[in-house]
């Protein structure tokens, strides 16, 4: 295995809450290898989205450093594609226009751009909807477009911030299946934030459980289950309950 794709070293993040400093993240060390799918899991308020925003370059860490492909992160960039919970499509662009946004910035020729957009829209099952505007799509379809948009820009890593959190339970599972299938084809390096244990076990090669405030890494689980995974297999349920036990300790702390 080569150098890690994402390297997080000694990251702290302090926020000012009503004028007083509050520690959101403390001493985070994490490496993500190439083609690896890592889930950040933890109770709400544990700072997992903050950590993702730091890797994306939207926030600066108070201490420590993040490197992607050996280069320190100083701000957002095309090497780190981001998929947001609220989709954040460009409403004035068609579905194809959204997917072509990154290649267009990269000065890819128009014909090639169209080919790229068609390929990724096909991959997420939206080939027939290229000319629609986002307002005409359902939540699940919007998130498929957002995933296609991130993939079409061919970033070194993809960061996903609770991407299925706003969807209903059925759509959520369908999209988990899709993402798992896409990952078996595309072999991306993915850092994925979720508070759903089931989702993490279904998708991840590794699950990183975080503690509640301040967020630290509590435990890391290697998920050795073969893909595609069966949510009802005995082994799946066993891993799920093992992680659930660890997460519950943290949730309980929040309520104390």
């Amino acid at each position: 295995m080569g150098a890690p794709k994402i390297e997080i070293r000694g990251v702290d993040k302090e926020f000012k809450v009503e004028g007083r400093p509050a520690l959101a993240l403390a001493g985070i060390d994490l490496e993500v290898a190439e083609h690896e799918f890592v889930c950040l899991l933890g109770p709400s308020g544990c700072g997992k989205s903050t950590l993702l925003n730091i890797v994306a370059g939207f926030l600066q860490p108070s201490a420590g450093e993040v490197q992607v492909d050996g280069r320190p992160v100083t701000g957002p960039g095309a090497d780190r594609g981001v998929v947001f919970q609220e989709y954040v499509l460009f409403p004035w662009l068609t579905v194809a226009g959204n997917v072509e946004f990154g290649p267009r910035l990269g000065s890819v020729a128009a014909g090639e751009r169209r080919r790229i957009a068609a390929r990724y829209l096909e991959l997420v099952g939206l080939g027939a909807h290229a000319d629609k505007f986002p307002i005409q799509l359902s939540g699940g379809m919007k998130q498929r477009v957002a995933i296609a948009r991130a993939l079409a820009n061919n970033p070194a890593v993809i960061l996903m911030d609770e991407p299925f959190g706003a969807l209903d339970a059925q759509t959520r599972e369908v999209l988990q299946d899709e993402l798992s299938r896409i990952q078996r084809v595309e072999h991306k390096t993915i850092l994925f934030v979720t508070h759903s244990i089931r989702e993490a076990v279904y998708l991840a090669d590794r699950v990183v459980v975080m503690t509640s405030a301040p967020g630290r890494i509590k435990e890391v689980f290697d998920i050795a289950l073969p893909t595609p995974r069966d949510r009802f297999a005995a082994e799946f349920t066993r891993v799920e309950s093992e992680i659930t036990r660890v997460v519950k300790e943290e949730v309980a702390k929040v309520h104390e």
Partner: protein
Amino acid sequence: MRSGLARGAALGGVLVAWALVTYGNRWLGITNPVLLPTPGDVIAAAVDGLRDGSLLRHGAISLLRVLEGFGLAAGAALALGLLAGLCTSLRLALEPVLEFVRPIPPLAFLPMFLVWFGLGEASKVAFIGYTTFFPMFVAIAASVLRVDVMLLRAAASLGASRVALIWRVVVPAALPGIIVGLRLGFGLALFVIVGAEFMGADAGLGHLIMEGRTFFQPAQIVLGALILGLLGSLVNALLLAVERSLLRWQASA
């Protein structure tokens, strides 16, 4: 279709009421019929004006002044509105100035423009520019300020530079507000051109109206007002059509 019929009927009703009052007055001799011009009087004035070409000349001059003043102000409002929306320190610096200038009725400054720019075209164009700039600037800056920061994040993580963020995200995202601001500005320009032409002008629809007063031709006053109204609704319909075609993505389907 139904609303189109209703609107046509309402307009027709107003015309009929106008005709009833004015022709009725003429029949019954309640007051001097010159004071209440009939639709026929106004049409006669329009035919006269069209025949000697004066109507077209006045209309064209007013429209040109409006276009020039509005165009200059729109350019400045777009540039400065974008800057102020993007740059917090500039916005904070401009805010007190705006709050001071904005409540002053623009017409209060009209004599100043005549003093500075004389009786020629420059004073009218400058005055319209001055009047329309502030509301357009405020609307544009506000719509730039309202652009969702998440859109900027999404674009930045697709590789957008600062310049690309402005042209490919801020401008299209703020476009609905920008267009509303421009429409507002144009309406206002038509609104104040009359005042500007009342004072020290030898042509234009405002002058035509003032001439109607001077030479006691009420029909000419009504004609000038009607043409201004017509011009306003035509331009508004045109801008709405542009807006609809530019903002296709907002329409639900």
